């Protein structure tokens, strides 16, 4: 008895100094996560912007030709290029350009001399409305379908959802757009087929105008989220802790919403992050079909006209949006399932 009493206190002292530093404080863990994330994000940003810049630099297009017209002599072109600093080494130009980009200065359009950042800012509302609405449709419909299929696993509902998702994932956004226009604008004129109105001017007109393009843009996201969520939920339902919760007598709804959904939504969230570049790309097509003066259309028009600063500016904004969204998704993953922290 006395022997055991004397030996007991020794055990914690032997373990304690070893254990104490290992326990992570939440603030420190967050900092470490932030550091790891930045170590990945910053090189990617630099590389993507370098590609963007080199694309313009090697295009052989120059503002001199566009400003001076056909009558320009080689001397004139050289003079304009020197004025704009285009005769310097490419890497020097890149660093200079990146310095401006970081401060939010995307240069000015070669064609009309208006600031690129300013023009993008004017058009961003259109694209954010449509892409945002598409994302909402994708998350809501995708979650509903995915949960439904997982809950009714193996039934005809499950199979119907799978078939539906496979079907809509093969439909390209521009084909869906045309289909929606044919059905809802030509055959049954319920929706306007083109244009955009700011929500501050007319809220109901805004909703009806962005509905069709948002649906066309969202189908990919709906099918992806539904499929990933179903897989994730089915896998999570088989875990031992779910059996434990059932044994403890928790209602099925609570198990699903509180525990299974939380653990099974990881893959769906990751996919959501990968969807954003496609949403931006899809916007190029849908905006031109539905006659909206948005970000995607601006990028396409700039590219067709050979307006290099516009092309570079739109690409940079797209890259930043994608990276920011990926960061958000990663942060959400960590919040949902602390284990995800280890895998970034």
């Amino acid at each position, binding site marked *: 008895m006395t022997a055991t009493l004397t030996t007991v206190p020794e055990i914690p002292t032997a373990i304690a100094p070893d254990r104490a530093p290992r326990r992570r404080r939440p603030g420190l863990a967050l900092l470490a996560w932030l550091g790891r994330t930045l170590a990945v994000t910053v090189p990617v940003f630099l590389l*993507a912007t370098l590609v963007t810049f080199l*694309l313009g630099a*090697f295009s052989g*297009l120059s503002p001199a030709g566009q400003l001076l017209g056909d009558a320009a002599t080689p001397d004139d072109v050289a003079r304009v290029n020197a004025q704009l600093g285009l005769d310097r080494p490419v890497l020097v130009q890149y660093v200079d350009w990146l310095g401006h980009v970081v401060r939010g200065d995307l240069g000015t359009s070669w064609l009309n001399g208006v600031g690129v950042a300013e023009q993008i800012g004017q058009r961003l509302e259109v694209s954010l409305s449509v892409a945002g609405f598409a994302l909402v449709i994708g998350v809501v419909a995708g979650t509903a379908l995915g949960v439904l299929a997982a809950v009714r696993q193996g039934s005809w509902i499950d199979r119907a959802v799978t078939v539906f998702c496979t079907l809509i994932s*093969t439909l390209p956004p521009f084909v869906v757009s045309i289909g929606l226009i044919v059905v809802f604008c030509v055959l049954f004129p319920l929706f306007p087929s083109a244009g955009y109105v700011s929500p501050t001017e007319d809220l109901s007109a805004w909703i009806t105008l962005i509905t069709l393009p948002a649906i066309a843009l969202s189908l990919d996201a709906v099918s992806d989220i539904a499929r990933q969520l179903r897989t994730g939920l089915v896998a999570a339902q088989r875990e031992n802790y779910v059996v434990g919760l059932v044994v403890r007598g928790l209602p099925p709804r609570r198990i699903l919403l509180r525990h299974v959904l939380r653990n099974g939504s*990881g893959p769906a969230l990751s996919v959501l992050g990968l969807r954003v570049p496609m949403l931006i*790309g899809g916007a*190029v097509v849908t905006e031109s079909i539905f006659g909206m003066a948005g970000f995607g259309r601006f990028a396409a028009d700039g*590219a067709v006209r050979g307006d290099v600063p516009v092309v570079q500016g739109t690409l940079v904004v*797209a890259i930043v949006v994608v990276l920011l969204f990926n960061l958000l998704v990663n942060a959400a993953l960590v919040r949902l399932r602390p284990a995800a922290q280890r895998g970034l």
Partner: protein
Amino acid sequence: MRPRLSSVLRHRVGAVSVTFLVLVAVLAVIGPWLAPYDPLQQNQDALLQGPSPDHLLGTDNLGRDELSRLLAGSRLSLLAALEAGVVGLVLGTVPGLLSVYLGRVFEWATLRVMDAFVTLPFLVFAVAMTALLGNGLTQAMLAVGILVSPAFYRVTRAAAFPVAGSQYVEAARLTGAPAWFVLARHVWPKVLPAVAVTTAATLGSSLVIVSSLTFLGIGIRPPEPTWGGMLATSLEYLFQRPTAPLAPALLVILTVGACNGLADTLRDVSGVRAPSLRKEKARAAA
């Protein structure tokens, strides 16, 4: 397991997909001889007609025969998609294989490059590259090929990683087999099924992008017929002929669907699992 044509054809989806793809490919090759009219020939007496015995799919706004244009457009669309697929295959698979062999620095560098490619939005980048490097589908498809290469890179790495550390590879090296021989003889067969699945899926998504670009009028000269271009024209005259988009749209959807069906069947047959992005990154960080 190595995917064989016979085992693909035993699946219903696989058989239908392969049959359809072969049919489209044959039509793309011999289409110009089958076409009832010259796809560029205009006819002022037959504008925007519906389907009739003379013009099985009707005519467009310049009186050109839709069926002939559809057949002529197949070749361009399929070739462009194929080009993107091949570029992606080469640019993704080669560094994917090498990253397993050349050590940490190469691995880290290629992973970052691939991450950067994933960040660039497909269509915006393709549009930019076409416009800046010359208005042609070849340039656009080069861009698309670059952007799909991360998919190939990831599946190749995921498949090659376990093989590279296996005992028979070690044994082969010990007997003095050169690296290229080990790669070709031992690693490549294990990587092939995953790459085949990705190739099929990539062809489908490339076709969507080709059609989107030609739909926007990028990468083609106007009279040249393409599936996307025909859809764009049909959209302008939608109120006169609401059924006009049907044929080109169906052709795009079915071909893309057949590519996806083939990819799914290949995946089932060879037991390839799509590598998860997170696992891949965790492995790189470890």
